[in-house]
């Protein structure tokens, strides 16, 4: 293979294998964000008590004590839900951002060879104007 074929080999790679690699890496990052913010775990346990804190209901029925326990346990669930929702929203935003950045990168990748040529030509033109 002569040296001249190298640019063509490159371009073939740029629009096939490289694109595939980029999609895989994008997938990796989406997977990472999803797991890093524990999105599925948080969604599944949204209403669970915060760190399993809470009271045990009295063995013998006592309206006051039962209500107090119910109130405390509900409060713990509420606290848990609020914190989890905050985390979910934040994680969701980051996830969206990665989707956005990924798509921009993929589109940019398509025109990157053109951008380089353009920047080179324009740069030279400006330099020797």
């Amino acid at each position, binding site marked *: *293979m002569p*040296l001249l*074929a*190298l640019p063509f*080999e*490159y371009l073939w*790679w*740029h629009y096939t*294998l*490289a694109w595939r*690699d980029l999609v895989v*890496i994008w997938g*990796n*990052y989406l*997977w*990472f964000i999803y*797991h*890093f*913010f*524990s999105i599925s*775990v*948080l969604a599944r*346990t949204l209403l*669970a008590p*915060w*760190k*399993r*804190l809470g009271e045990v209901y009295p063995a013998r029925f006592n309206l006051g004590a039962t209500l107090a326990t119910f109130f405390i346990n509900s409060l713990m669930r509420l606290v*848990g839900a609020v*914190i*989890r929702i905050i*985390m979910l929203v934040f994680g969701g935003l980051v996830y969206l951002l990665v989707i956005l950045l990924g798509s921009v990168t993929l589109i940019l990748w398509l025109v*990157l*060879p053109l*951008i*380089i*040529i353009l*920047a*080179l030509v*324009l*740069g*030279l*033109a*400006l*330099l*020797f*104007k």
Partner: protein
Amino acid sequence: MPSTLADKIRLSRLYPVLLLEELISRRARNILLFVGKLLALGLILLLAHAWWQGGAVALSRWIGLAMITLALTLLVYLIECFFRSYYYDNILDNNYHRADLFTFTVGRILFKLKNDDVWSAFLTSSTGLAVMQRLGVSYQQIASFLQQRDANLQTVVKLELGGAEALTLRRLADWLYQHDESFSKWLFSLNIKIAELDGAVEWIVNEIEARARAERWWSREHLERIPGLAKTWSYGQVPTLLRYSEDLLAGEPTATLAAGTSARRAEARRLATILLRSAEANALVVGEAGSGKLDIVWELVRELALGAVPPGLEHRRPILFHTALFLAAFRERELLERELFKLLSEAISAGNIILIIDDLPALLAGAERLGSNITALLDQFLISPALMVVALADRELFHRELETRDTLLQRFEQLLVATIDQTRLIKILETQAVDLESKNKSQIFFTYQALTALITSAERYFPSENISDQALDLLTEIVPWVINHEREAGRETRIIERDEVLTFVQEKTGIPLGPIAAPEQAKLLGLETELKKQVIGQETALAAISEALRRARAGVRNEKRPIGSFLFLGSTGVGKTETAKALARVLFGREEAMMRLDMSEYQSAESLSRLIGSFSDGKPGLLAKLLRQNPYGVLLLDEFEKTNKDVLNLFLQILDEGYFSDMLGRRVNARNIVFLATSNAGAEIIWQMIRAKRDPSTMRAELINQIVQAGIFRPELLNRFDEVVIFQPLSEQNLAQVAKLQLEKLVLRLREQGIAFQVTPELVAEVVQKGSDPLFGARPMARYIQDHVEQAVADAIISGRLKPGASATWLAGTLSLQTSTNA
């Protein structure tokens, strides 16, 4: 059809990347990228400055320059991406296409091929150089080899590409070794074996892969290692448990545990499988003390941290419970039970705890000392599906404390810790060695042979069940040792080779191992002479022993047997014990290296358990204890024939295999021991033969024959000894020499007190005449000297007639005093 090797390389899928690598090397690309980034930054600053100053023309020029820099930097960046894409695909994902004839690493070597001389391409490539360096071959050696080779290039065999599989670096190295005689001869002259070449190649390939893995920060494998947030929000807290425990996911070690070669992966997976059971998900890890039980747990922790575990174990929190810490906190049974109940309840309600008890037998025994049987208490928690328990137990304690508790054992699935195999161990050592090299700022460099020597030394000279631990310890210890030696010698870097390891082990153990240095060479060659100075009149016996020991030291010996084993036959007082002492002095440098067991004390039925220990009363055996405390030395077994049959059978095994098992089934190594068994059996026969003036060469076979016929030793036991050595009765002349030696010892002792004692020929003759006994050999002479000569000297000292500075001698059977001229 491509015909030549060069054509095949040119048509390969990897050719563009290899060509690119040749045009702009990776190093050059990295430098260009760095410069590009710097320039871009500088230009942005200048641009800002120009814009601030005003002036449209100047500004547009700066913009032009910035755009050109940006375009060029992007170009280099894309080229780098192009390269890496193929590189990682091939190196890490091992994606070989059907048409691929070779791997990337091999491609780099073949690309440099000239005149079809693969070997010089290999040796001049960076990979080849790295391999040779790990084998301890220097650049100069390579250069001079290549120079010699150029002279007869016509002998080169051509490499044929196109087998069923892609040509890997290892296959290429093997091919070179098999097809290129000059290469294999050269390696042979450097004392490098094919297995070592393969090992070094494997090491370099692993290093290349590890480096590539670390570079690819965007890989799933890499991202997996970053711990996530909010994993424990739905699980409870365990404050009581944490008072006596440590959260293995929270501490520092987890963060530093690098992925890569792991010795305990298979066992960690088995542990995970046990923990995933729906009920009684408890594991009992049993192994020798220090055999790496906790390593298995750590491996599981690492996988937990990476999220590389089945869903059932995700978000689980491994907590290591320190039994000793817990037991130390309680003096009362009730408090201990209450606290244990509380912390176990906590662990259950938390919902995600893997409780690792570091020493279950100790916990049970400790509680028992306070009068508490916690088996029942533990049991109710062990059946709970909400708690996973991993209990660790030493094998010895397992037998003593746990084996009898059936109900408790039913709650656990047992996991036995196996020893690590060699291939895995070498990989671990390689990773560790590279780590140590970088930690010591390249002051040291390990060769492959050094690592294999470390493993064999650990196996042979530091006997324990856990060879991997021993080998790793040796690896860590040798570094400061080498650095100190180098500092004393005024050198900076040091290549650690096989010989350094052997010298280090030799210093540590006292066993001569390393290259046979001149003084030792002299000692070995002159072993007979050295022994003859200390043992009189046994030339044939000493020659036989010396020959056997030279064989051992030359590395010809079977390493799975003791260093040497000899049976000394002869009557008492002919120098058998003296030979043992002399051997200890000559071989190990000190007489104390000689251990002694009087076998006549081991005649009764319980002798065997006294030697190897008894399970019922938990007492360790004397022989087991002796060999554990002194793994290297000379063991004298006096009056060997008097012991019972069981003990003789035990020695049958020891002499044959070099080890035995004690009462708890632990191996006791005896491979670094010289066994000397003495026996009076046949003394009478020897006497008769000597009187009949029989030829000594025919004596031996006949003597052994008679001993076997008399049923004293079985033939298989006699065959186990390296040599059956016959000690002849001492002649009058020998006896005179012995008497002289013994009297000289007295002279030395008196000289320390400032008294000069002169030994006269008459005294020697008197000692021989009156002291020796044909039946007891030289032994009664010592008694005669003590009773007569020493007694007379002592009387003279006490009565004040013999003072420091005075001289004395022995004349006509009495002590004769001579007043010193200085006195």
